[in-house]
């Protein structure tokens, strides 16, 4: 058990049936075709001397002997760590209170908590500046009333603030799933022994929810480490991802450093992922009663009630502020150097709805399909890693996770380079087929779903599967009848994060969209946000994106709640 990064649990460990080998092979081929090959065709220049062929590591020597890159590296590491800390502080109360207590509107809070993830490109940034910027609403009012300003959006601390608000849902979603999966007797036994409140959380609840927390926290760390949009928005350029982006997208220069940094990003992300699996290594998180247990929600009384609602309100107001700003922007006539817009209008919505119906349909199809592909592959990899002990499983996990660190533009170029020459029977290039956008989105968001599926499977006791196999269920029927239903909430969490973030993804899409009629919403948003007059319309489209994705999230949260409720009743 302690020899590998993951404790392989239970039935048939180490047994690779032909069916499983085929499954691993198919996933391997998929990842090779749509991740490894496209990316390698782009970043191999990191290993070439500039302007010629051959192999060299001189570019990596240059990387480490350049002050700027070293500084960027440490800045990225610092910002990522601090973002995890702040994001955890935001996510913990939301996750804990909504899963453990009778909490009015728990599904609503869970949904609202995911919304920050859906930050439409450009429009979200403008809205954020209008609220928290140096001359945003908050600072204009502070200056007016008290004569000072708070630099929310400046320097590395500004990046930490924005990243934490943006990505804390990763922790929220994964932690909530873990919390729901803990057998209630685990906590009741502690309460029975005199433990309550924060100590109960620290000693029992949180340690048992570790798989979900680590999954979420490692995602936040890597995502922040690899995020280029937020630092660039705040004009922070001495971080790694922005440096890679700036160099890869500079016109006409054959600068290998961008690709060198991409390699460094990929390696660093894998390292972080590896460390997070080390943290969980050799520990057993399966809670035996998962099959029948479920959680009982405790009532909240008196001061606890006030504190809980207070904490959640503060967090929600903070993390949803950008979306309030986005909404204001979408109904604003002109909003410039003022706490609120000059006037209000519905014209932006009228314009967007008349011009952009296709964008919305396309987005739902693309992001939905990408989310489905992600949870299917994510569950399959989780099964291979946690239940069969095939070394191939672990490799698939690492490769899929590496997608997190691949800049979208690199993947987009890789897709074009690999598939543009391939012609479909219709005469169209394969790279121009809309399905390629789906695949690119699926690859980009696979790590999210994978981590969620992994955490969900880690919490299912193997004995439940063994029971099914003992009763004559084959391995595949056990998966379908026992594992999948038990993983449902984890899978739903994975789908939601993949879907929601795919719906607003732009960087790879930008390379692959080849006709207006195939374009998703994020692309439409980009088009609007390139002109002063399109700002309101872009914000309106952004609000529509948030609403659609938010509603989908809400529905899936309700489904999970109902599933959980049904299970608790069965026990009673």
């Amino acid at each position, binding site marked *: 058990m302690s020899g590998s990064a993951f404790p392989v649990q239970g039935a048939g460990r180490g047994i690779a049936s032909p069916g499983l080998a085929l499954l691993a092979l198919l996933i391997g081929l998929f990842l090779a075709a749509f991740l490894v090959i496209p990316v390698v065709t782009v970043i191999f220049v990191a290993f070439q001397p*500039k*302007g*010629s062929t051959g192999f060299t590591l*001189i*570019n990596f020597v*240059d*990387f480490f*002997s*350049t*002050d*700027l890159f070293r500084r960027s590296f440490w800045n990225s590491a610092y910002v990522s760590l601090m973002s995890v800390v702040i994001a955890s502080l935001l996510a913990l109360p939301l996750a804990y209170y909504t899963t453990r207590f009778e909490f009015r509107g728990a599904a609503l809070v869970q949904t609202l908590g995911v919304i920050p993830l859906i930050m439409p490109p450009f429009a979200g940034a*403008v809205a954020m*500046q*209008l609220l928290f*910027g*140096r*001359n945003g609403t908050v600072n204009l009012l502070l200056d007016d009333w008290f004569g000072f300003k708070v630099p929310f959006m400046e320097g590395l601390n500004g990046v930490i603030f924005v990243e934490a608000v943006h990505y804390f849902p990763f922790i929220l979603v994964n932690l909530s799933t873990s919390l729901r999966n803990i057998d209630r007797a685990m906590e009741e036994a502690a309460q029975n022994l005199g433990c309550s409140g924060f100590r109960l959380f620290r000693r029992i609840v949180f340690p048992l929810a570790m798989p979900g927390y680590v999954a979420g926290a490692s995602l936040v760390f890597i995502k922040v480490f690899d995020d280029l949009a937020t630092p*660039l928005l705040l*004009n922070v*350029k*001495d971080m790694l991802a*922005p440096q890679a982006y*700036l160099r890869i*997208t*500079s*016109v*006409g*220069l*054959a*600068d290998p450093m961008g690709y060198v940094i991409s390699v460094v990003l990929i390696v660093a992300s894998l390292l972080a992922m590896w460390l997070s699996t080390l943290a969980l290594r050799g520990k057993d998180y399966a809670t035996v009663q998962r099959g029948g247990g479920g959680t009982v929600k405790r009532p909240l009384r008196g001061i606890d009630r006030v504190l809980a609602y207070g904490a959640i309100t503060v967090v929600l107001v903070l993390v949803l502020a950008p979306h309030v700003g986005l909404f204001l922007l979408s109904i604003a006539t*002109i909003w*410039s*150097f*003022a706490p609120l817009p000059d006037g209000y209008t519905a014209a932006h919505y009228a314009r967007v709805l008349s011009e952009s119906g296709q964008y919305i349909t396309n987005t739902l199809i693309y992001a939905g399909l990408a989310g489905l592909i992600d949870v299917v592959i994510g569950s399959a990899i989780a099964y291979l890693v946690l239940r069969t002990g095939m070394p191939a499983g672990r490799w698939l996990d690492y490769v899929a996770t590496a997608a997190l660190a691949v800049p979208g*533009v690199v993947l987009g*170029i890789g897709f*074009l*380079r690999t598939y*543009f*020459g391939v*012609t479909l029977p219709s005469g169209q*290039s394969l*790279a*121009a087929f809309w399905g390629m956008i789906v695949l690119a989105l699926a690859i980009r968001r696979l790590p999210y779903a994978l981590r969620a599926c992994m955490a969900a499977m880690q919490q299912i006791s193997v004995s439940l599967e063994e029971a099914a196999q003992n009763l004559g269920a084959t391995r595949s029927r056990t998966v379908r009848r026992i594992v999948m239903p038990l993983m449902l909430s984890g899978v739903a969490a994975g789908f939601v994060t993949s879907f929601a973030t795919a719906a607003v993804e732009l960087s790879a899409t*930008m*390379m692959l*969209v*080849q*006709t*207006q009629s195939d374009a998703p919403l994020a*692309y439409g948003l*980009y*088009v*609007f946000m*390139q*002109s*002063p*007059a*399109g*700002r309101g319309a872009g914000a309106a489209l952004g609000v529509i994106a948030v609403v659609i994705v938010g509603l989908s999230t809400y529905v899936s949260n309700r489904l999970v709640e109902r599933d959980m409720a049904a299970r608790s009743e069965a026990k009673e």
Partner: protein
Amino acid sequence: MISRRVALAAAALSVALAGAAHGQAPSGKVTVVTSFSKEVTDPFKAAFEKAFPGTTLEVQNRNTNAGVKFIEETKSNNGVDLFWASAPDAFEVLKAKGLLEAYKPKADGIPDKIGHFPINDPQGFYSGFAASGYGIMWNDRYVKANKLPEPKEWEDLATAPYFDHVSMAAPSRSGTTHLTIEAILQSAGWEKGWGIVKAFSGNLRGVTERSFGVPDAVNSGQVGYGIVIDFFGFSAQGAGFPVKFVYPSLSTIVPANIGVVKNAPNAAGAKAFVDFILSEPGQAILFDPKIRRLPVRTASYAKAPAGLPNPFEFKWLADPKSKFDVEKSEKRFAAVDALYDQLVTFQHEALKAATKAIHDADAAIARKPSPEASRLVAEARALVARMPVSEAEAASPEMAAAFTGGKEKGPRQAELEQKWAAYAKENYAAALAKAQAAQQAAK
């Protein structure tokens, strides 16, 4: 709205006639990759499709860099007819890689040059269709609330009141910013020019990565002033934002361009579109309040809306100082970008600290003059302005090879960048110390 409808009707009529005269009407889908926004492309699309029934203009919006990469990556199976964007350097890249096809548009009334800058590519691989000049845009509310002055010249932006209130895109990210810097370098000379550039760069609040990030920040009031291309200012005014725009007396006017892509699937359609936007009705569309670009066709200005300048009448364009040596610019293109990034963009905190200290020292001297302090401040300014590379070195083939991967043996890009960054850091720290000493001396 009325002017736009008139323009569309006129376009439909005259181009229909033109098409009939040519005898072979274009048809089918014309695919254009462009960095222009919907506000710009939609009116052109509508007018063109109306003028040539049976054609559709398929617009693919991509930022300039992504557009260039896209055309480069898809050349094996090219599906793009036209590349349509502002930055001349992007066209230069495409041209150098043999991805454009030469075409001489059937257009009249378009001069060869605007000021000293050629409107069309001399080899005919791309054509200018609108003129754009760089200038200073500011948010009126911001400026009034902070009791700040209204600028007239680049040098104004280097003075103390503007500290931390200005924004600009990095020249490596914006072709037009690059040309503005280059124009300053050419008119003021290498050393002095960099002095001006670094002096106002020290006042920047931030160096943005997107050209549009600058007008965006000015429009929303996050910064007071932006160094922008003119139509950003004009179209923001057109959209109702409280902003103003001015051309400094030494600016540069550069054309925004369109070029036919090599092996275009619908070459006839592509050429028809080029002809169309250079025709009288096509040029008139540029006056649309949401576009507000300056036509290259001089006669079009007779119908220009109020407030829109005619760049062909700018006096400074005739000034010999605004002479623009295209060849010189080409040779040191990458070096200028990299120098700016290493000396300014990535050392911005140090540069700002030194600049702030110099402003403070100036203020101290104004209160209590001291020759010693004045000498120290002058030294500090000189330290900020110092360049690690001479004009000749910057334009050398070795330097170009370091950036573009040419054959000439020389230092690698990463080595140069590290050297320059270290140089700048050291000098800015020294300048800071001198300026602080000057403040002490004037106490």
